[in-house]
């Protein structure tokens, strides 16, 4: 399986897992592992297709999968997700079809967003994942308003606001955390601290030792979590979600993770990352960490993994072929959806 630096071990025994995750623990870990392999394969394929000029752009989430998958599996169906830059996987785990997402990546006529946004900016309304913006941080206050709506309608749902370490520097982070604290709303603020904002290391975003400590300024709990330990991530998310659901207000979770890819396909980390970064990041890669645990528990075999990869590959091939066979959005869609149907765009003629 994965060669390379040895992964930081996940220190759980079978009885631990049973106690922490319940009777169904092995199925949960299998599902998570399967998604990790799917996401990894998707990232690799799309980066290759981007290099070949078949996809315009791609923003990988390599190294950050545990957080997205845990969020996808810990949330309830009626929870809403307000994504940062790398939470496309959350929508997939919650049931947004992979084929639809690939249509979006190709910006073809079957992209639910009608090819209006760059790749990796999906809209997944059927799983309550709000259409992503390129603007860092603007989604944070949206999660807060949505959570206000949950309480207003007595809907036992929680809003998840995702943002990166860079995202903690923008004004919407402050405004959103502040409003959620004042109104005591059911929001889980998920900071995916992958330690980089393009070329800026996290030390250039803030002088605090832990971003989680910023929660104190807003009167809410903040916790730092090993975001490449799927189990801890899942437990912390579940706990924060349930607290919010019980009316106990918002939580800030800082997931410490390692960006294993360039920022996007337009980026060259050789210009700014230290030489040993890749190796350090690889030790914290959530996939081999989970793989090693599953292996130690006797839940993994070469054959199972090979079969899993075969299925993933077939699904991806099919999705790419379907997208490449789909024509782009028609010119008649250009002026659609500026306003509601039948409303004139700028002036009546």
């Amino acid at each position, binding site marked *: 399986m994965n060669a390379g630096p040895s992964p930081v071990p996940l220190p759980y025994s079978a009885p631990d897992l049973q106690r922490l995750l319940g009777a169904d623990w092995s199925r949960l870990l299998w599902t998570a592992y399967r998604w990790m392999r799917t996401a990894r394969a998707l990232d690799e394929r799309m980066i290759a297709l981007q290099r070949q000029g078949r996809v315009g752009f791609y923003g990988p989430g390599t190294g950050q999968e545990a957080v997205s998958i845990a969020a996808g599996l810990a949330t309830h169906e009626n929870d*809403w997700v*307000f994504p940062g830059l790398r939470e496309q996987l959350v929508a997939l785990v919650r049931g947004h079809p992979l084929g639809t997402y690939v249509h979006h990546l190709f910006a073809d006529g079957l*992209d*639910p*967003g*009608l090819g*209006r*946004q760059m790749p990796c*900016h999906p*809209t997944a*309304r059927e799983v309550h994942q*709000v*259409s992503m*913006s390129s*603007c860092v941080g*603007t989604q*944070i*206050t*949206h*999660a*807060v*308003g*949505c*959570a*206000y*709506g*949950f309480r*207003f309608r007595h809907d036992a749902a929680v*809003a998840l606001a995702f943002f990166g370490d860079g995202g903690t520097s923008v*004004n*919407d982070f*402050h*405004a*959103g955390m*502040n*409003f959620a604290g*004042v109104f005591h709303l059911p929001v889980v603020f998920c900071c995916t601290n992958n330690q980089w904002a393009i070329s800026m290391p996290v030390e250039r975003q803030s002088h605090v030792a832990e971003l989680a400590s910023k929660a104190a300024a807003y009167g809410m709990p903040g916790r730092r979590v090993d975001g490449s330990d799927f189990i801890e991530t899942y437990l912390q998310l579940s706990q924060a979600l349930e607290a919010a659901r019980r009316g106990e207000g918002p939580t800030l979770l800082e997931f410490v993770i390692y960006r294993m890819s360039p920022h996007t396909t337009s980026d060259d980390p050789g210009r700014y990352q230290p030489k040993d970064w890749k190796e350090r990041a690889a030790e914290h890669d959530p996939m081999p960490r989970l793989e090693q645990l599953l292996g130690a528990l006797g839940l993994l075999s070469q054959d199972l993994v090979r079969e899993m990869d075969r299925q993933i590959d077939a699904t991806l091939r099919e999705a790419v072929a379907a997208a490449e066979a789909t024509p782009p959005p028609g010119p008649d869609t250009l002026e*659609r*959806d*500026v*306003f*509601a*149907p039948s*409303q*004139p*765009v*700028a*002036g*009546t*003629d």
Partner: protein
Amino acid sequence: MVQAINRALRTAMAADPEVLLLGEDIGVNGGVFRATEGLLKEFGSERVIDTPLSETGIIGTAIGMALYGLKPVAEIQFLDFIYPGFDQIVSELAKFRYRSGGQYPCHVVIRSPYGGGIKGGLYHSQSTEVYFTHTAGLKVVVPSTPADAQGLLLSAIFDPDPVMFLEPKRIYRAVTGEVPEGDHRVPIGKARNVREGHDVSVFAYGAMIPPATDACQSLEAEGISAELIDLRTLSPLDTSAVLGSVEKTGRAVVVHEAARFCGYGAEIAAVLAEKAFYSLKAPVARVTGFDTPFPYALENLYLPNAARIREAIVATVKAA
């Protein structure tokens, strides 16, 4: 006018339990201009929400409410202070429906007092409507009478799209008039013919309607018959009302208190040049504020008044 706004809010909130208000000092204090007076008592603090001091917070939160399906009406205390929330308006509010392929309509009304004439200096006087008319995906509405304020605000609250509802604060109390009872709506996107005329068309909106009316009336004695159109909705523009009037009169004067350069008058002049060129007998004239920040001591010099409007009308009519 401010009472008409208050009535529209009350009517909308009574008609639809998912209409919510949020903003600074709007609850206990009833708004610094008293537009939300009494509403906290009537509808409770879950629906009339006093927020922390953050425009990006107010507008971003309102967007989240609207994505979920509520009908938020945000108040920004002065248009001059909207800029901390500008990113939320132009990057998010205006684009949600489009970027989601129509799946996430985002219907927020943003009410904000704007404009000069209250001795408010640089930061309580500006008229920057074109920042918003230039952004696709926003409707921009400016009432000039109590009846329109009520009817347009009701339309805005029940419109499917985001609406910037800009309130000319100088005439909040100065302009009075009859207001129909109940949920009486004035359609967005339709100009209002204030007075008919056949020599020249005057286009204005907001607090410029009273001086423009005075100017037109005073010219009657001199045999100049001026038509006055209150645009009421700046985006989408009622293009046919503009063209129809100029095809009849052959002359146009545009009045606004905002700065001249790239102001709203430039768009009207361009539309006329493109689509009514052969009807025009004289150059289009603009009566506007100056291309300066808004001055405190010299605000009466800055703002167009009846005399300046009159002068422009006379010059336009005499030109040809």
